[in-house]
């Protein structure tokens, strides 16, 4: 018997009392793959993530996580099994970095020795092991460092699935490249199923083994980065345009 897919969307629709946000979305993430969804603001990117850990429930269709419909999971159990990196990072300002990372392990009732060891391990993994980061406060860190803590917090209890909502949106391009690099390295070590949403096609190409394009509440395309780049679909090309313009500018000098 084959293991169930990590995440499955079956004809999922969400309206929340207004015009449809998602309209019959089908999507399957195999274990260990990284799928990046791209779309404009308001295309329903965050909604997709919140459906996975049941911060939202669909109006039609269903979502399966590790083969079980989300409605059959205990919601708190589900969320502790699905790491989440928020767009705003949202580290708790009244907790130290170590305490922030330790939130989910403590919610799961780990003993303190194990928690401490795990926090140290994650600080190493995210490149924050060197200094006294553990006892610092979130406001003392740079944007890139905070973002790494956000990732470490999501990974703390070793969940099989990681959801990332515009995780590097607020960073400068250089730091963002570094973060992409680092996340790929982490992914090689920990092999998670990652669902990442972004408005930036470049980021999607850098991160995703497959890239999906969300438009008008549906998946307009879902394929390898190479295939997406050659797509003739106008909804896909619209998102690709800034990328090509930047490349063209680099190759042909100033337009």
């Amino acid at each position: 018997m084959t293991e169930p897919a990590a995440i499955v969307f079956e004809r999922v629709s969400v309206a929340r009392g207004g015009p449809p946000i998602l309209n019959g979305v089908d999507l399957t993430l195999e274990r260990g793959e990284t799928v990046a969804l791209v779309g404009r603001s308001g295309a329903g990117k965050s909604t997709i993530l919140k459906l996975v850990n049941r911060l939202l429930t669909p109006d039609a269709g269903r979502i399966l996580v590790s083969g079980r419909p989300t409605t059959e999971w205990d919601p708190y159990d589900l969320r502790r099994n699905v790491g989440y990196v928020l767009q705003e990072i949202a580290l708790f300002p009244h907790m130290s970095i170590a305490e922030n990372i330790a939130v989910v392990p403590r919610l799961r009732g780990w003993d303190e020795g194990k928690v401490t060891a795990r926090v140290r391990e994650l600080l190493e993994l995210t490149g924050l092991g060197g200094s006294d980061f553990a006892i610092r406060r979130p406001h003392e860190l740079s944007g890139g460092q905070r973002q790494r803590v956000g990732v470490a917090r999501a990974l703390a209890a070793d969940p099989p699935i990681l959801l990332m909502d515009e995780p590097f949106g607020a960073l400068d391009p250089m730091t963002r490249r570094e973060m992409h690099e680092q996340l790929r390295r982490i992914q090689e070590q920990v092999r998670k199923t990652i669902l990442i949403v972004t408005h930036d096609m470049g980021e999607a190409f850098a991160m995703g083994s497959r890239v999906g394009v969300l438009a008008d509440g549906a998946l307009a395309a879902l394929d390898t980065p190479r295939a997406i780049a050659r797509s003739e679909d106008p909804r896909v090309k619209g998102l690709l345009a800034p990328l090509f313009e930047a490349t063209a500018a680099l190759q042909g000098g100033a337009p």
Partner: protein
Amino acid sequence: MRLIAFWRSHAAELAALLGQHVFLVGVSTLAAVLIGVPIGLLAAKRPRLGAPVVWLANVAQTIPSLAMFGFLLPLPFVGGLGARVAITVLVLYALLPIIRTTVAGMRSIDASLVEAGLALGMTPGQLFRRVELPLALPSIVAGIRVATVIGVGTATIAAAVGAGGLGEYIFRGLSMVEPTVILAGAVPAALLALTFDGGLMLLERGIRRAIESGGSRRVRTIAIAGVLAMAAAAGVAVAIMRPDADVIRVGSKNFTEQIVLGELLAQTIERQTDLKVERRLNLGGTFICDQALRSGDIDLYVEYSGTALTAVFHQPVETDPSRVLDAIRQRYAQAGLTLLEPLGFENTFAILVRGQDAASLKLTTIGDAAGPARNWRAGFGYEFLQRADGYPGLAKAYGLQFGSPPRAMDLSLIYRALADRQVDLIAGDATSGLIDAYGLTMLKDDRRYFPPYDAVPVARRGMLLAHPQVKDALATLAGKVTVADMRRMNRAVDAEHQEPAAVVRAFLQARPR
């Protein structure tokens, strides 16, 4: 300095009053925290439910504190004299700032932090304990700080309902027109407010720093330490207070003569019986004393026959002294109260003008004042302005019309206001020592407008049955206090700044048993 000398000679009393003050503020603030914080949390989470509560707290805040005491006095459980009603009032005042800042603290929490907590798998309870409460705590403590400082101020008014506290000195000083005594209460109250404010500021800062330096455990430790410190302060204050069970409680209204008469009853009982006496002097006006007597918060006080007839029993004015006494004796009896024998003097209302005016305008009767009154301003006590036997009837009986509407003034300030020419005619007490001290002239009530005002003790029948020796002791006072005696004692207190207790002691020692 006289202030320091006063504190030295009253050290024990000062400590007790300070203890009562801390007790009132501590207990009421603690109760307001226990009530207000949950309400604020609920209001922040469920605005529809919370909005009306916040509105109610707002309304409570706008009621003047003395009026609030008046509303609550007749109520069961919370009402009555003493600490209970004072604490109720203080709690009502403390609620608004605490509820407000709790709501504000909760609302100021970044929505993304709440979402992060939920996304990480916190239950609503965990979210509240680990994220929302620690983040809202500095704001809540700031509210408690405001509430405490307001409480220290408002608690001074608690003396008006016999709850004690530093307001005792303030009210006593006001009725004696003695700034030293006012300061003796006001200065420690201000210092107390500053101390509380400073202490809570340190607590607030500690929590803020602990939150910034990460360490939800330290936040919890500091918050618990703060609550424990408050509880300990209240506990110490309770120990200082130690209420006594089997004592005779003597009350009085809030002016000098009443305080002297309260002392007179108290010392007479103390000298002639073995009973303990608790003095609940300097309460509010007639209404508060009457309520206190009926509810058992005091056992006796001295009332004036005419006042009892019109203000307590709402009967029409009657001018025959013995018929007035019979009428009120019967009505008091129906309420389970016993009218004892009159003390011997009558304290009628005195319509007073400055001596120079009386001489230059040749004024001897109230009727003579009708002419000049057109250019005058009058000053009357609050009670006199309202009572049927007060200003409205007086104006009618003598055709008095003043150039401008009468000023409502505190009785303790009214003589001085006349002497200082702020007003030109006042209604005072015929027995006031200040009449001679300020050189004022009393105009004759030749049309017998004012009913008789014989000073006469009223007591709870139950107390007299339980302690018949009290009745015997008070019988020795019957008819023994003349108007001259009373004016002299009032003057000794008001103009010569002697202690009422000392004045009464001298009076009792000067006369044979």
